[in-house]
């Protein structure tokens, strides 16, 4: 294939770029998609858009995939569709295209080592159950949390999640 905008974009995908080219547009993915039954997500169209180029990065339906893997399991061409969606999403995020709620979750991980950290209500629930207020995770082990924060900083994930 010539180096059109589309193939240039697909070459940015780690493993799944050439996979996407195998698509024969049968639509089994779209027909198997539980999100697509209720939202505007059309998996086949999303992948076709990825073949065409970078406009897929700002397609809002990129984020309505629940990653259930039905499409990937049933694809007759054996395309790792959800893996491709992960890779396309990662490119979008690195270009600053990310929903604000997702950025918030990322920041919670950066700060607490948990994407869903403890809160007062649940500390009370734990105590009512006769458990320690904090679980034996990074929440109870500051050294472990320091390790996690160091690894996150080395991966520059904190920068990725910042608003700058």
């Amino acid at each position, binding site marked *: 294939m010539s180096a059109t905008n589309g193939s240039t974009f697909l070459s940015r995908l780690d493993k799944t770029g050439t996979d996407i080219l195998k698509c024969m547009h049968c639509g089994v993915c779209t027909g198997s998609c*539980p*999100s697509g*039954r*209720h*939202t505007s997500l059309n998996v086949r169209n999303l992948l076709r858009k990825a073949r065409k180029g970078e406009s897929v990065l700002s397609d809002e339906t990129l*984020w*309505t*995939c*629940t*990653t*259930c*893997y*039905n499409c*990937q*399991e049933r694809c007759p061409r054996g395309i*790792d569709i*959800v893996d491709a*969606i*992960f*890779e396309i*999403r990662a490119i979008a*995020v*690195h270009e600053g295209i*990310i*929903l604000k*709620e*997702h950025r918030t*979750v*990322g920041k919670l*991980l950066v700060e607490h*080592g*948990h*994407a*869903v*950290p*403890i809160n007062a209500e*649940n500390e009370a*629930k*734990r105590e009512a*159950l*006769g*458990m320690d207020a904090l*679980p*034996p*995770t*990074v*929440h*109870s*082990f500051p*050294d*472990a*949390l320091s*390790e*996690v924060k*160091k*690894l*996150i900083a*080395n*991966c520059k994930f904190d920068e990725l*999640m910042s608003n700058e």
Partner: protein
Amino acid sequence: MSESARKEHEMNKLSLFLGCVIPNRYPGIEKSTKLCLEKLDIDCVDLEGASCCPAPGILRSFDKTTWLVLSSRNISLTEDLGRDMLTICNGCYGSLADANNELKADEDLKESVNSHLAAVDREFKGTQDIRHITEFLYQEIEPENIRELVTNPLKIRVAVHYGCHLLKPSKGRVGMSVERPSFFDELVEATGAVSVDYPDKMECCGAGGGVRSALSDEALALTEHKLSMIEAAGVECIVNACPFCHMQLDVGQTDLNERDGTEHSIPVLHYTQLLGLAFGYTVEELGIDLNSTLNKAFFEMIEDRP
């Protein structure tokens, strides 16, 4: 329990990986898990100092390296203990098993991840397996042995919700059928309950992939459909194996009720809570009364059991 089954599971020492949603939102599931493991005489210790798995559908979507480095750190903790890791969440299971498989199969990737882990004096070796409590109980303990230990058989009709990442992607799982599995139903029926078939039983709850966290109306559309199928089947409760599905199906009902004035009220139980009831523990001991959706009739029915 038969001698052979006991021997088999003595070979599997485990560490318990809690993740985020169970300890920090549904601690009753954490407690129920420990009560059940004790009853089943399974050697399992807390995996101290573990972090988020990290969440497969969204953090993996943001940056693959961060996802692999943090998951490999969690795996290195269980390697240090020489124990396989027991997960009680489909998301944690999927995230950690996928990372473990990828790193075991790709020396270059392993080397790259280990160059990160070296900064905190850790190393991923690839010596342990990641297990999910349902497939572990099914394969290592077996439903018949669980049935023998049940003291308070449950005479209830149950809608089993497998969730997605317990089974898929099949390339990284334990070979159970993806389209029509039965192992979880068999575990549920070992408690005396009846697993009732219903349309779209294998369908997603709606929460995964960051949809719940950022696009809650879209997530609720899937949940509402799933609930309608379950309600039409006539069951006393939903049983799941994942706290994220648990949260979506539980809080989803109260969200829908608030938004639409509906009256969804199906109790949602993690498998360890159902098993705990069959072992004679109370609704309160298992934290089932700490859900968002509370159903008094269900609690009374459980209390009135023989």
